[in-house]
């Protein structure tokens, strides 16, 4: 067995070597820094952005705030809609074709429309992100509630559980894992929606910064932003995994 410490050490050595090689080849002109940036340039961009000029903090918080608002709003409405649909299957059948149509649409195409409606502020990107998160969490909620084990229902009914007891003690807990995987995906897509909308047009946000850097051919900045977004996505996944472990010990 390889010890975890050795594995971590291996990764660190690999990354350091890769960065050094990149820097070296960049300095020798083998890799053109105009198209690929250079590790030292990326680092100094981040240093300026977060430590000396501190301008990135503002954009980072706009992006995170928009994603968080969209995630919470979209998930809550989706879960409520999912509950309503499972209680009123007729309503669900009636809404199904329209929901499918909306869900089939490439949501990023809504950005121009939302920009006209909500302007360049935070509203547009929240709307785009919600349009993604909502459908994902809705589908998960409906699937989770439908997926309840019928043996559990038969048994609860035979033992005399009321419909309310069955819902809160059996149906809902059994749907939690499925809803949770919907939430995890919904959060990733909320970030995608926000950054996508910012790329097209926005006052603030990492996506807007990225679009600006790209238009001025600042390749170190572009690479730095990509790194930042990757880390942001990664921390979301890690946080959700941690939460899932806490929440679903029984799995």
């Amino acid at each position: 067995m390889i010890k975890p410490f050795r594995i971590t050490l291996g990764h660190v050595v690999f990354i350091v070597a890769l960065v050094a090689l990149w820097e070296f080849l960049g300095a020798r002109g083998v890799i053109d820094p105009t198209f690929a940036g250079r590790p030292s340039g990326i680092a100094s961009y981040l240093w300026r952005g977060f430590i000396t000029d501190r301008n990135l903090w503002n954009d980072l918080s706009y992006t995170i705030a928009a994603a968080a608002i969209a995630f919470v709003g979209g998930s809550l409405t989706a879960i409520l809609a999912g509950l309503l649909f499972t209680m009123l299957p007729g309503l669900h059948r009636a809404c199904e074709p329209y929901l499918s149509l909306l869900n089939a649409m490439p949501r990023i195409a809504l950005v121009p429309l939302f920009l006209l409606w909500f302007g360049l502020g935070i509203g547009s990107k929240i709307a785009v992100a919600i349009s993604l998160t909502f459908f994902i969490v809705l589908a998960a909620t409906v699937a989770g509630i439908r997926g309840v084990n019928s043996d559990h229902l038969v048994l609860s009914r035979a033992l005399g559980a009321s419909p309310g007891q069955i819902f809160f003690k059996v149906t809902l807990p059994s749907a939690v894992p499925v809803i949770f995987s919907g939430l995890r995906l919904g959060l990733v897509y909320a970030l995608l929606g926000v950054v996508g909308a910012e790329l097209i047009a926005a006052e603030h946000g990492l996506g807007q910064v990225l679009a600006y850097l790209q238009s001025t051919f600042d390749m170190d900045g572009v690479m730095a932003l990509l790194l930042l977004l990757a880390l942001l996505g990664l921390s979301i996944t890690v946080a959700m995994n941690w939460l899932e472990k806490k929440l679903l010990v029984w799995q």
Partner: protein
Amino acid sequence: MSRPAVAPGAQIAGLAHAPPAAVDLPPSIAIHDLTMRFGAGTAGAVLAVDNVSLSLAPGEFVSLVGPSGCGKTTILNLLTGLLKDEAEGDVRVLGKPPHEGNPDIAYMLARDSLLPWRTALDNAAFGMEVRGLPKRERDSRARDLLQQVGLGDFADKFPKALSHGMRQRCALARTFALDSPVLLMDEPFGALDAQTKLTLEDLLMQLWSAHRKTVVFVTHDLAEAIALSDRVIVMSARPGRIVADVPIDLPRPRDVRKLQTDHRFHDLYARLWRLLEQGASAHD
């Protein structure tokens, strides 16, 4: 009570062996001319149960055997009131017509149907919880029952950490934690391996002797039916009719493992097997 005096120790055997009519208490379960047709009046109507009459004395253990699809589960579901479809005939549980959530009835299914997000203790307490017992009372009772089924050290474990047999023990605890006098069991040990099954049958016999419930036990396993029951009801292939009502006059208390080598046990097995075969071929 007007029951004639019997020697101590003989009483349980006496009650168990007497045919229901000879017992002076009113029957726990009385089914009279029951006929059940699924989708009655439609083209695809299925006659599931045909003219079944059956009566169980209080504390009696009766097994229902018969080919798959002969209506065993249907009869249990009619007794619990889970099936709302029109059935002809008269069904009474402790003198009352069936209704869903009848507190006189405890029900146990083939699959353990433990709730995976609850610990063994909370699963054992589930039935009492939906019936509104206060938390302290149900917890202490659930703990007591887990002890009785040999899961005392596993109270805080989730079902995923329990073996098949242990899960079914936990389901037994949940069932016997209810003070319902009537117990309906639908192939509760059907999914277990032979050895685990014998252990759990023994456990069921212990619990039953201690709690004295009226039991309808559905099974595919003739050996199991003989080992546990006072009577075995043999049903025919669909539509389910009763083809035989065989008293099992093996002495109690029984040791399920010892019975496996008892010649009376094997004679009964052979007899029931023939009856089952005749019933199975009667209709197809």
